[in-house]
């Protein structure tokens, strides 16, 4: 290697090192899976995306503790609950244990504003006398020991009534004082501070949870903790994806290195051939780091996969070099074709940019910049650092025979149309729906975890995940007032059997008007003391016993009314907060429903309130979201195809030659689609990404096969280069096809099939014009 070459090589590597340093400094990798979800258009879709990420449902974790017996499980449930309540990762912990601390001391006087007990009959002498007589009876009952501490301050047992009022609409099984599943596990509901679809933050919370359980468990080694919920799933899925992609990545890298060593018999060449793709990758990352504040982990993973196309460029240069020619000369000869390939691949990836999804736009920026830089460095840098000595790939043993075999294959003219008809028939007969409309399929969760989720959800009487009731008003108090107003209509719906139960925001906090009305109806000190004296003449209660009660009623008469912000500090505050959302100056109330049997029946409610209250079908919103998304991507693809065809025509300026390149590519793409569809696959975003990649690779094969070779040796070189490319692509993607994860499998299977079809059809169709 002469001095100039060495200097250039060192300079190139130095630039790459600086770039790597800059990237490492500026790049922030995010993990919010929503950046790979479609952009929301309608109000319902926006609400859906918010709820998916930050809504109470997505931040809820379901825990199940199994132990040797109920008593041990219940003990662990209590210990874990108190440990988690002290942990800042969690905003709410519930395990079903009776909690007389449902209102803390400061909020206790507010019970008279919160309770509906005295709405029909105000707190007067008769009501009070009845209540107190009943307390005497309570003192003789088995529950006396529980109630005694409450009586002096709360003789009407308002706290108990509120606890009952606020208990879950369909309470789970309670044993040993805590929630249990029918299978005998103690159950807990935990709400994380972190958003559900942020796997990193959820991962931290779940680690804290597991550490707390280990500490609580101590020596009861038989006890097991099972976790479920959207946040847990996002951790499992992203962890599993990362691990499996890494493992498969290592394996295919080793295979790739072995393949290149076999093909070119030189470690130096292998190292140099890697430089263009490394340059492309680093430049791509630097470009997104500059254009976006944060790059998604998936963008990087997919980006490097898609950038795999660029590995073809150095391979072409190495394989096509002929004896007596410098690397620079052979690159010049190849450049027009390579340029066409690069331009068309960039155009195909442009389609991702048009999708409007942040994650995919980042992907487009990354791959386009990467391809351009990889192409440019292959053209201008790589040839200048390659060693003088090399092996002509035309002399590779066995290549001659392979060439002869392929050359003499029969090429019946009727085969391509027949394949086309066959594919059309297969597409027509495919058993499953064409598109995968399920948003969940974008972030797939193992089936056994879903099964457990369903079981725990049913045991906890957790609300329906499909429907939400949405109340809209100008202020939080407006939402609460609206919520109170529709209670009679909701009761009618429950009576009609349209729904089993509905949990509205006003269940936890009455509107200011209602609180004011209740406040005004409370007796003043003199009146209350007179009532007490009257009631106590026949009862054996000690004189002055109820002084704390009189104090509380007096306080309640003058308290500032309770707002959602003040209520937020109470144990149930988080629950209310999750039900009240501010958006663009408007307030939304989100009520949960249990057991929806007739969604149509809710339409009357919408008309009654002039659209202020409506039923939100999250499944419908998500399906419409995916459908709208797909439409955008399809439009983008149509534009990409037109541009691609135009590029090929412009490059060739020859209809016949362009047709020979485009026809096998199109037919192969249709065949891949047909095979996928006939084997029951519904198409998702990932299949579309994979199809584009395969088409990009296929275009290369067709372009090079279509080229009229100067001599037999050059034809062999083309075959050598193409075989190396095909085998390396198959190596990477066939491995992915074995993955247990649907996403990786979809990409692996589609690209492997595509590479196979594109290669065969390119040989079959692209070379037809060659003079024999």
């Amino acid at each position, binding site marked *: 290697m002469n001095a100039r070459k060495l200097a250039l090589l060192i300079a190139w590597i130095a630039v790459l090192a600086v770039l790597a340093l800059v990237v490492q400094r500026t790049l922030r990798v995010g993990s919010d899976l929503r950046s790979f979800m479609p952009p929301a258009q309608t109000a319902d879709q926006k609400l859906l995306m918010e709820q998916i990420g930050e809504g109470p449902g997505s931040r809820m974790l379901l825990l199940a503790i199994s132990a040797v017996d109920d008593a041990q499980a219940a003990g662990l449930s209590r210990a874990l609950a108190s440990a988690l309540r002290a942990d800042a990762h969690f905003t709410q912990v519930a395990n079903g244990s009776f909690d007389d601390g449902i209102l803390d001391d400061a909020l206790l006087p507010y019970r008279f504003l919160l309770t509906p007990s005295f709405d029909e009959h105000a707190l007067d002498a008769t009501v009070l006398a009845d209540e107190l007589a009943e307390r005497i009876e309570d003192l003789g009952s088995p529950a006396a020991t529980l109630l005694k501490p409450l009586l002096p301050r709360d003789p009407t047992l308002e706290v108990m009534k509120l606890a009952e009022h606020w208990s879950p609409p369909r309470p789970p099984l*309670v044993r040993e004082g805590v929630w249990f599943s029918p299978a005998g596990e103690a159950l807990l509901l935990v709400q994380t501070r972190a958003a559900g679809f942020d796997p990193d933050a959820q991962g931290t919370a779940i680690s804290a949870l597991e550490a707390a359980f280990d500490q609580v468990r101590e020596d009861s080694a038989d006890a097991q903790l099972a976790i479920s919920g959207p946040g847990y799933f996002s951790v499992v899925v992203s962890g599993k994806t990362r691990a499996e992609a890494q493992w498969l990545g290592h394996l295919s890298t080793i295979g790739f290195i072995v393949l290149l060593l076999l093909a070119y018999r030189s470690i130096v060449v292998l190292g140099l051939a890697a430089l263009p793709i490394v340059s492309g990758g680093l430049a791509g990352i630097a470009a997104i780091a500059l254009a976006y504040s944060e790059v998604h982990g998936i963008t990087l993973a997919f980006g490097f996969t898609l950038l795999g196309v660029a590995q073809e460029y150095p391979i072409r240069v190495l394989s096509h070099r002929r004896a007596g020619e410098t690397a620079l000369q052979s690159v010049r000869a190849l450049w027009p074709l390579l340029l066409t390939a690069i331009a068309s691949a960039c155009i195909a990836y442009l389609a991702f940019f048009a999708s409007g999804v942040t994650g995919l736009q980042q992907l487009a920026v990354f791959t386009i910049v990467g391809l351009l830089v990889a192409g440019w460095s292959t053209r201008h840098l790589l040839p200048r650092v390659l060693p003088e000595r090399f092996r002509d790939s035309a002399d590779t043993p066995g290549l001659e025979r392979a060439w002869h075999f392929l050359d003499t294959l029969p090429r019946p003219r009727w085969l391509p149309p027949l394949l086309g008809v066959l594919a059309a028939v297969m597409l027509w007969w495919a058993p499953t729906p064409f598109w995968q409309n399920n948003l969940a399929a974008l972030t797939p969760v193992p089936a056994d975890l879903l099964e457990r989720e369903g079981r725990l959800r049913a045991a906890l009487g957790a609300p329906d995940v499909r429907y939400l009731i949405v109340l809209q008003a100008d202020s939080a108090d407006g939402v609460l007032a609206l919520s109170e107003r529709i209670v009679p209509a909701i009761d009618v719906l429950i009576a009609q059997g349209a729904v089993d139960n509905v949990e509205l925001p006003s269940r936890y906090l009455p509107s200011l008007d209602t609180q004011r009305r209740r406040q005004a109806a409370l007796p003043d000190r003199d009146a209350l003391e007179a009532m007490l004296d009257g009631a106590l003449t026949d009862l054996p209660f000690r004189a002055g016993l109820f002084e704390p009660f009189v104090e509380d009623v007096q306080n309640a008469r003058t308290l500032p009314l309770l707002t959602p912000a003040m209520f937020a500090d109470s144990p149930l505050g988080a629950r209310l907060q999750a039900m009240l959302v501010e958006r663009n100056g408007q307030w939304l109330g989100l009520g949960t429903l249990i057991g929806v049997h007739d969604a149509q029946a809710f339409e009357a409610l919408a008309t009654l309130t002039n659209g202020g209250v409506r039923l939100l079908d999250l499944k419908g919103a998500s399906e419409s979201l995916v459908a709208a998304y797909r439409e955008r991507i399809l439009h983008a693809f149509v534009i990409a195809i037109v541009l691609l065809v135009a590029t090929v025509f412009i490059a060739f300026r020859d209809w016949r030659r362009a047709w020979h390149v485009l026809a096998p590519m199109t037919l192969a793409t249709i065949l891949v689609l047909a095979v996928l569809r006939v084997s029951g696959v519904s198409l998702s975003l990932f299949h579309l990404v994979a199809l584009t990649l395969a088409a990009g690779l296929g275009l290369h094969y067709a372009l090079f096969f279509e080229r009229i070779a100067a001599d037999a040796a050059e034809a062999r070189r083309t075959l050598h280069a193409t075989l190396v490319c095909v085998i390396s692509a198959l190596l990477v993607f066939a491995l992915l096809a074995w993955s247990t994860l649907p996403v990786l499998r979809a990409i692996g299977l589609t690209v492997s099939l595509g590479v196979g079809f594109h290669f065969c059809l390119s040989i079959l169709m692209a070379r037809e014009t060659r003079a024999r």
Partner: protein
Amino acid sequence: MRRRLSIVTWMLLPCLVVAAEPDAGSLIAGLAREAPARTAYTEVRFAQMLDRPLIVRGELAYLGPGSLGKRVDTPYKEEVTIADGQVSVQRGSRQPRQISLGQVPELDGFLRGFGALLGGDAQALARDFEIQTRGDASRWHLSLVPKDARLKRRVASIEVDGAADSARCFSVIDADGDANIMLVEAMAAIELPKPLTRRNLEIVCAGTAAK
């Protein structure tokens, strides 16, 4: 029922005579009755919240393992039934109120103890309570202290007084010092001591021969 009880106590007598302190196991086993067994009761509740004791009368029923009934006739009407882990409380003509015992484990432990006592299940009782006995065959006293820490915070002990041929009083001593003394069988009909203090009633329960 009186007859059945007497037979049981007769069978118990030999062991009571042999041991200086009566053996708890056989004593409790001796309390076993065939369901349904009923007895009238008079219950006197001494509580710090009340300036005079509350006197309640009615009928107590043992309806089989884990199943109890308590009816209040005066001064108000109430019917409490405990079966299959559910407590049902009916007052006057109102809708019965249901409480699941699983929700209130303290109550569950307490009622389980009471049920085991009336069912004569010494083993079950020993699982949940520390048992002490004193007295002799003609006048015995059982003291049950709960083992469960949470129940202990509510109930200090359950005391049972018995005579040769019948149980006399069940007393529940709350952790805060309040006491609920229930006179059963023949004792239900006696005239209550005057003045009605806890000490006086305890003396009545223990019987004149008590230390």
